[in-house]
């Protein structure tokens, strides 16, 4: 199943992408995806930590991803 991944802030620079489509083997949790991403893009370890938003809402680690979800990698925010 396919999801869309969005990268912001420092994550864009580290991964070199703004937005990609990404294939998951099965329905999996946010936590599982985070681990996959750190393997696929080891430079993400250079960020202090990052959150995940699914369809424009912050997601807990145990949320299960669905086909066509829009999943954003949210480095520490620094607005204001």
């Amino acid at each position, binding site marked *: 199943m396919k999801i869309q991944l969005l990268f912001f*802030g*420092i994550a864009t620079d580290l991964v070199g992408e703004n937005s990609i489509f990404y294939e998951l083997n099965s329905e999996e949790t946010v936590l599982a995806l985070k681990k996959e991403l750190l393997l696929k893009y080891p430079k993400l370890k250079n960020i*202090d930590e990052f959150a995940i938003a699914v369809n*424009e809402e912050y997601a807990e680690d145990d949320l299960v991803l669905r086909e066509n979800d829009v999943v954003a990698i949210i*480095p520490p*925010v*620094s*607005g*204001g």
Partner: protein
Amino acid sequence: MKNTAVLITSEKLKVQDCYDFVQDAACGGIALFVGTVRNSTKNKEVSLLDFSSYEPMALKEMQKIADLALAKFQIHKIAIHHAVGELQIGDIPVIIAVSSAHRKAAFEACEFAIDTLKETVPIWKKEHFNDGEVWVNSHP
């Protein structure tokens, strides 16, 4: 009547716009916070800042803050405006304006809104120096 205004824009923010939105004949006071770009950070000279956002989500999170401020504090109206793009020293990245019958609630809501915005709203700031640039808050 709409009592919240949230905005993300690449135009210059105007204090007067936020003031005009929250001003109301029933309110006795308006508290405002205006963020401004400082010329230095950790004793290093800043040349400019570059703000980017995950705009649809940032607007949702700003709306949540406005709605929560209305629920938590006895206020009339709240405006939360944030700029994106390149900002120079003295430019305004953020304005919060809150009106209320009594001033204590306006101060509390204003401080709550800016504190929460800095924690939850997906907006990122890159500081540019003469010798490089850095994403604020992002490094261990």
